[in-house]
């Protein structure tokens, strides 16, 4: 009986993605005629997805997993096949719940943010949200890299649609284009990677004995000193280790673009031009998560390559610090959040690169909650402020907007990593993993650790600068004195996420567990350690140990001491950053202290001239290449086509001349043609000898 019920949960699992697809269709074609222009369909669909996801998660909790092909696109014998399939294991089940929950709440919030504000183009908006939810959910349960790529791209498309929602203004279309092009740049590498993985392994399936991580592992384990091809795999002249590293880097290109890591992070701050609920859904909680999730999904492959892991950790640590420093000086509340998002995904990458798989997934989860909360909170503030986003025009909103304030505060405490809010536990675990693996024999990781640690100070500072400027002190403008009222549809999501931001960290209290010796309270660790063999934490630990040489070290030989020190340092630094912000900005009329930074501020305000140098690169090299390819296109391709058309105009003329309309000519040509054919074949066949 139980077996049939569990099977049924997996049978209906495709509906998790299909429900939002249905809402997309409804909003697109019937949205105009619906009372809420498609919002209710979206809410119902994502609510249904949430319930189904929870059901699947419960089923997975019962020990069942699912890894099946459901639709085959192309099957060619002995080479490869392209198919869609479902992989439901603890990781994807967890992510399904997160995505559908955030999506549901964002739909709800949109009622207040979009409908009540009388925005135009609502059916288009809700259709975009539905399509996005569909793509993201399907991406999450994809069982192979090809399917991941397809939905990865669809997610990118939805992002373009939604960022450019207000397409009549100047900035949003341009931001949408930028987001699309920058992520596309990374996706080229991803696409090449997918093809290369097909060419190497003949499969892109994530899980099972025939999956590419397993094949790669066997090839590496079996190759020894053989070099060259390994285990029947073609590695194109490279050693298997080197080749797998190249493959890892190629896929990583897509990850860096989508998860907004340095140097492809520049699209994300601009993407804030989209409606705020979109920022919450796409650019904080889910789409940006796609990159990190992809690394986690194929962690068995990345764990085989120490070089890739080190690069992931370094890029992550650097991005965390780099983005956090830029967030310090921003005036626009959404810009602060945008840079904090980049910074937080940097932490996740650091965690993955440092061998902290659980830590990274943990932070992915807590961040989804508290960042969605912060964006929705910012959205609430923006509604209240009549769509003003400059924090210097706010102030004193605490008394006037109590629920958003406390929810926002909860999210901010989580973001800053203050005990006992969610972000503290997950961020601390990432730093802890980087530290212990760093001192355990991989000193490179210590660099990532130090950057991550420094970023903690910045995070504490900019978070509380944002809270203080927005909510504390005296109102600085007329609008801030008389904010707009907020409806239930705005407050409910804030309340739900506020509670989650405060409590979600309790699912994996590593420091407490280590100190008290209670391994059992590390629930997430246990959750990710069951399921399909080869996709478990334990296996990943073995892989990073065997192939990347990650071993756990401890300060002064004491694990408890290490844990305490690590947690203590990061908490102290976070408090220091927050305290500094408090000192500078807590008065009734705070001053703009960042002005004192002088040139540094200019540098930071201009985002280290990232956009400028990328534009410069794009203009110099891009335009150069474009000009070259234009010339190639004009002279060679068009030349060929023109040549072809000229030849064909000419020969068309000839043909026209041949096609005289006179039947006797046709008969002659026909007969001559036959004779030529006879002579050719006859000569080839030697009839005349």
């Amino acid at each position, binding site marked *: 009986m139980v077996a049939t019920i569990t099977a049924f949960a997996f049978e209906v699992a495709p509906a998790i993605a299909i429900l939002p697809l249905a809402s997309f269709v409804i909003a697109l074609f019937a949205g105009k005629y619906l009372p809420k222009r498609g919002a209710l369909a979206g809410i119902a669909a994502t609510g249904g997805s949430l319930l189904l996801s929870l059901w699947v998660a419960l089923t997975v909790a019962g020990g069942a997993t699912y890894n099946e092909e459901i639709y085959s696109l192309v099957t060619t014998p002995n080479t490869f096949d392209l198919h869609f399939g479902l992989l439901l294991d603890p990781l994807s089940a967890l992510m399904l719940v997160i995505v559908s929950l955030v999506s549901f709440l964002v739909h709800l919030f949109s009622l207040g943010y979009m409908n009540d504000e009388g925005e135009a183009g609502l059916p288009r908006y809700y259709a975009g949200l539905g399509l996005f939810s569909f793509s993201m959910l399907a991406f999450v349960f994809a069982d192979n890299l090809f399917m991941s790529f397809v939905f990865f791209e669809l997610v990118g498309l939805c992002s373009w649609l939604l960022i450019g929602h207000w397409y009549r203004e100047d900035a949003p279309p341009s931001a949408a284009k930028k987001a699309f092009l920058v992520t596309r740049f990374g996706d080229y590498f991803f696409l090449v990677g997918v093809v290369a993985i097909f060419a190497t392994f003949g499969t892109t399936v994530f899980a099972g004995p025939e999956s590419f991580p397993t094949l790669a592992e066997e090839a590496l384990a079996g190759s020894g000193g053989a070099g060259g091809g390994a285990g029947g795999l073609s590695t194109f002249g490279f050693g298997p280790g080197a080749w797998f590293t190249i493959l890892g880097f190629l896929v990583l290109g897509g990850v860096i673009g989508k998860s907004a890591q340095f140097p492809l992070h520049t699209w994300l701050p601009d993407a804030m031009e989209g409606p705020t609920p979109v920022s919450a859904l796409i650019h904080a909680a889910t789409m940006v998560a796609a990159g990190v999730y992809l690394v986690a999904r194929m962690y068995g492959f990345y764990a085989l390559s120490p070089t890739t892991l080190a690069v992931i950790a370094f890029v992550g640590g650097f991005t965390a610090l780099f983005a956090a420093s830029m967030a310090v000086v921003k005036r626009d509340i959404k810009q602060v959040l945008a840079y904090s998002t980049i910074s937080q995904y940097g932490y996740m990458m650091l965690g993955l690169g440092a061998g902290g798989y659980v830590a990274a997934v943990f932070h992915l989860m807590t961040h989804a909650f508290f960042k969605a909360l912060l964006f929705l909170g910012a959205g609430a503030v923006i509604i209240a402020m009549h769509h003003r986003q400059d924090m210097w025009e706010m102030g004193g909103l605490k008394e006037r907007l109590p629920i958003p304030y406390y929810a926002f505060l909860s999210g901010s405490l989580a973001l800053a990593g203050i005990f006992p809010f969610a972000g503290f536990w997950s961020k601390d675990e990432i730093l802890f993993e980087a530290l212990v693996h760093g001192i355990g024999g991989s000193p490179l990781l210590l660099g990532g650790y130090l950057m991550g640690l420094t970023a903690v100070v910045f995070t504490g500072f900019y978070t509380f600068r944002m809270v203080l400027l927005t909510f504390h002190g005296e109102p600085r403008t007329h609008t801030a004195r008389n904010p707009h009222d907020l409806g239930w549809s705005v407050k409910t999501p804030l309340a739900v996420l506020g509670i989650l931001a405060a409590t979600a960290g309790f699912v994996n209290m590593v420091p407490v567990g280590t100190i008290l010796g209670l391994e059992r309270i590390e629930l997430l660790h246990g959750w990710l350690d069951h399921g399909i063999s080869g996709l478990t934490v334990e296996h990943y630990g073995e892989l990073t140990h065997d192939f990347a040489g990650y071993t756990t070290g401890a300060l002064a030989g004491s694990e408890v001491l290490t844990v305490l020190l690590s947690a203590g340092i990061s908490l102290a630094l976070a408090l220091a950053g927050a305290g500094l912000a408090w000192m500078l900005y807590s008065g009734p009329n705070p001053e703009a202290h960042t002005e004192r930074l002088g040139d540094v501020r200019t540098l930071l305000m201009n985002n280290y001239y990232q956009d400028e140098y990328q534009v410069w690169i794009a203009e110099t090299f891009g335009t150069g290449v474009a000009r070259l390819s234009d010339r190639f296109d004009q002279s060679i391709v068009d030349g060929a*086509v023109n040549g072809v*058309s000229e030849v064909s105009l000419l020969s068309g003329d000839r*043909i026209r001349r041949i096609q005289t309309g006179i*039947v006797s000519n046709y008969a002659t040509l*026909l007969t001559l043609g*036959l004779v030529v*054919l006879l002579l050719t*074949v006859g000569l080839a066949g030697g009839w005349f000898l």
Partner: protein
Amino acid sequence: MAVGSSVLPTPVLQTAPPVGDWVALAPVLLLGLTALVLFVIDSIDPDDASGGGALAGTAAVGTLLALVAAIALLVAGIGQGQGGALRLYGDQLVVDGMALFFTVIFTSVATLVIVASYDYLRDRVYQAEYYVLMLLATTGMALMASAGSLATVFISLELASLPSYALVAFLKDNRGSVEAGIKYFLIGALSSAIFAYGISLVYGATGQLGLEAIARSLSGGTQLVGILGVGVLMVAGGFAFKTASVPFHFWAPEAYEGAPAPVSAFLSSASKAAGFAVAIRVFAVAFSPQAVVASVDWTLAFWLLAAVTMTLGNFAAATQDKVKRMLAYSSVGHAGYVLIGLAALNSGQNGLVLGASMIHLLVYGFMNTGAFLFIALAEYWEVGRTFEDYNGLGTQAPIACVAMSVFMFSLAGLPIGGGFMSKYFILVGAVGTGHFLLAALLLINSALSLYYYSRVVRSLWFEEPADSLDIEGYPFGLYGAVVGAAVVTFLLLPGIFLVSDAAISAASALFV
């Protein structure tokens, strides 16, 4: 496939087929019977103006029934599998997977064309004759696919051809139509003569007319290589005429352009497929490559035909001003693609390469018929014949224009319709058998074809309509046929695997 044995295994003659003759031939019989019923209707009520509905309805029901029968026989597995072909009437007719597969193509095309003709022929005289001729031609085509000896091949080919000549010249008061019909007839007569002469030479060399009998006779080798070779190539010439392959294609642009558009659709889709059906059977069975190619390398002949046909067809299509003439030349080009299947025989993957050609013909049957029927729609609206005349039609008739765009992109081989998959199969077959030059030509020509196909789409959607553009009415039959063809073309993209297995196994079964 038992390749390489010098002695072909003697086929097991089935003295008692698992089903009656009339069951196995049900599609052909239904088509012939419908033609006779149309005669009767016309005799009872010779007044054309009032009888259009009854005639078109009867004809459509007849072809539809034949289509259903063919599909049912295919699904039931009649005559399929290795050595499972049903041989009837002393081997004169053969019912197997390939015959049924092609019958599906012919009857589908005929159904679409007849449904569309109902509107096209409204208020014209000689409607009954039109439908009867079409049914008889379809019967001939279905027989061509089943022909088991060179005698039945010739007779069925003529049964398909003669009504076609009359159909092309159907618009008796239209100079273009009549001229096209005459030219078609004259070239057809010359080709038939060449074909018949080829048959006589083959008979002279082997003493046999039955396809399998010829194969048995040739398996021992022959002293009369030259005679056989000339005969084989002349037979190939006869098929080249039917499939509108260069240099036997001269009739095609004129006939397709001059004929009423539904007839063009019928000829360029079904008639071409019929030519290929019979060519495939004759060359795969009678002149089976492993027995003949060493002395008479007809794959080389088809290689040349394929290369020249697709190149010339596409080049000529690119320079046309009139949409219908462009489609006529593109139809020549597509014959070149399909010829790759014959050119790549004897390379060890016969089932795949021939199956690919058959799949392409099936998909082509829908997308090309649909495209010509759209032309019929345009002729019905009298909007003109050139690309410019189609400017802005998308604003007036969006549904039909969406369908036309599907046809164009599918013909070009973009993954919007089944044309992408079928061309992909041909490409895989060509590359897999080492015919890289043909594969390259296929790609180049496809790229070129995108240029002139997209011209149509650009006219429909992106150009400003002329002020005088005004269309009247949305004829139900024409619309239904165009949209139906578009839906099938589109569905064949994901659903290609429903038919590809049938085609490849039917093609494999030819090589015992």
